[in-house]
């Protein structure tokens, strides 16, 4: 006799207990502290803040611990928490020219004013697993301090009028994509917001596809810089800007060959990527995809996935994608039942038709 599946509530409670146990592991091993995660897994923390759209290292570390290191789950936790936070106001545009640079490299000039600054990068590690202790050696003091501000490499090209000019002052006020729905066609500010929250893996794949012939854009890494930027707000009642802190950012400006079109002369064009914390792979991917998405504006033929606004922007978000792919786990008994009865009808029709045809063949042959 069939017994209806009851007790969903109890099953959920038991599942949560198992999850808590699996997450914590052996109680003899101390629990990870948030400081350990912030300091020793800082790139993970940066990614969670970046795609979680919330700059808070402690909350991001907490989310990573709660998610047992599943980055997409941690991002989801942070996003859900973010929903409940009141919005006090908007900051002034960040000035990355005034960044206190920890790393700054250009792939387009051997040397640039301010110099190439490698900073803390994995680029030149030899990817040998370090079986020994990872305690760092004493750092050496630099011969001279880095300059306070470094000119942007692209501004140097701008002086020669070789690169497109983009006047920030003429931009319309951007919409807030976390408060307004994404609508198409989407302007560049909206697209950049979407990409900034987008999944690193998705953007990396999209960016890679543009390098393999699906929307060739001939990119050069004009400049990548990482460091701290001051955050300013201008409260209405004060009427002047005050600094509320500083955040670490990674910025990438791509330079792309452009042979002219849509009434514009041949020149270099720009692709832009920005992300919170250290996230060079993401910033570079974002810059490549930003540039390919400008195909309509520049009169380039659009045929590749990375040039398709709706394709890229509708599928970039890991929280949306992860939820919808995994919702297939939910019961679909009712729709499946509907499909079962439809398929039975179709299959009966097919069998009848086959039988009729066979009968007809026999009649003609006899």
């Amino acid at each position, binding site marked *: 006799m069939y017994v209806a599946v009851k007790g969903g509530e109890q099953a959920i409670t038991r599942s949560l207990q198992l999850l808590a146990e699996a997450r914590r592991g052996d109680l003899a091993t101390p629990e990870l502290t948030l400081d350990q995660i912030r300091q020793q897994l800082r790139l993970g923390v940066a990614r969670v803040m970046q795609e979680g759209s919330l700059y808070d290292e402690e909350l991001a570390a907490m989310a990573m611990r709660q998610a047992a290191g599943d980055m997409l789950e941690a991002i989801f936790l942070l996003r*859900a928490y973010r*929903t409940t936070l009141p919005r006090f106001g908007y900051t002034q545009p960040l000035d990355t020219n005034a960044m206190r640079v920890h790393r700054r490299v250009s792939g387009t000039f051997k040397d640039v004013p301010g110099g190439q600054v490698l900073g803390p990068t994995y680029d030149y590690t030899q990817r040998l697993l370090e079986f020994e202790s990872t305690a760092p050696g004493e750092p050496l003091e630099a011969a001279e301090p880095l300059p306070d501000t470094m000119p942007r490499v692209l501004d140097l090209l701008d002086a020669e009028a070789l690169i497109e000019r983009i006047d920030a002052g003429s931009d319309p006020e951007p919409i807030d994509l*976390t408060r307004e729905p*994404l609508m198409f066609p989407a302007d560049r500010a909206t697209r950049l917001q979407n990409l900034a929250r987008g999944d690193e893996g998705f953007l990396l794949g999209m960016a890679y596809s543009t390098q393999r012939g699906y929307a060739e854009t001939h990119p050069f890494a004009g400049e990548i810089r990482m460091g701290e930027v001051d955050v300013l707000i201008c409260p209405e009642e004060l009427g002047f800007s005050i600094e509320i802190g500083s955040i670490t950012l990674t910025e990438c400006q791509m330079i792309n060959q452009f042979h002219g079109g849509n009434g514009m002369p041949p020149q270099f064009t720009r692709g832009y990527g920005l992300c919170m914390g250290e996230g060079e792979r993401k910033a570079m991917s974002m810059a490549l995809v930003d540039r390919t998405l400008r195909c309509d504006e520049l009169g380039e033929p659009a045929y590749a996935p990375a040039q398709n606004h709706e394709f890229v922007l509708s599928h970039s978000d890991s929280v949306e994608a992860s939820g919808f792919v995994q919702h297939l786990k939910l*019961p679909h008994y009712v729709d499946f039942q509907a499909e079962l009865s439809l398929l039975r009808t179709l299959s009966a029709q097919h069998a009848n038709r086959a039988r009729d045809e066979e009968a007809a063949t026999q009649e003609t042959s006899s």
Partner: protein
Amino acid sequence: MTSNYNFAFLDENTKRMLRRALLKAVAIPGYQVPFGSREMPLPYGWGTGGIQLTAALLGPDDVLKVIDQGADDTTNAVNIRRFFARVAGVTTTERTTEASVIQTRHRIPETPLREDQILVFQVPEPEPLRTLEPREAETRTLHALADYGLMHVKLYEDIAQYGHIATSYDYPVLVDGRFLTSPSPIPKFDNPKLDHSPALMLFGAGREKRLYAIPPYTQVESLAFEDHPFEIQRWEHQCELCGADESYLDEVIVDDRGSRMFVCSDTDYCGQRRAEQAA
């Protein structure tokens, strides 16, 4: 009820935004209103649209029922009910007649609804034309022009190929003679319940950031042709638990020889009928 969050999780400004969008939706039956969908603590695709609408509707005196596949005891329904019990502290029920707000996925209750009830649907894909035209900018234009030729051709091709319309759930409807609308993935069995329903029907698609409404007593027509009228599913069986012969039945495999039994998908309806029979 947890006091760390506002009543029903969302802040009041967000609820106001949602209510404004809902008013617009009620004013233009079947029109998909874009709204600033928030990130909820449940995954996209698991009812975030429905949850946001329910959160905007609930008051402290409301009685909430949540069903998935017609059942109150499926895990996701249990989880959404637990969520609102936790963040809003409202009374919950499994009885259709006792609820003032019913959130549902994939079914409309068998028990007829009343004027003082609201049915909130979870919608995965609000755009009925999406599988025929993936571009949003294009489908919005088609709606603006009421150009639904694509859908009629699709249904016609079904008839040409199979002899009947081969859509069994999420069967497209025309609301108030104007907007082609997705009824959400309910079986077409439930479509007639949408027509001139006394209860307000609200639809929320969180991931797609759209909501829409079918106001009470609105004409809702399932698309069909004069020579191929709309038909609903019929079973040769009755519910083996309550004997109902007019309810939507789920097929259950009961042993390893593949034996089947058919039972009501609406657990409350089935349970009430059995209680009456026992009395």
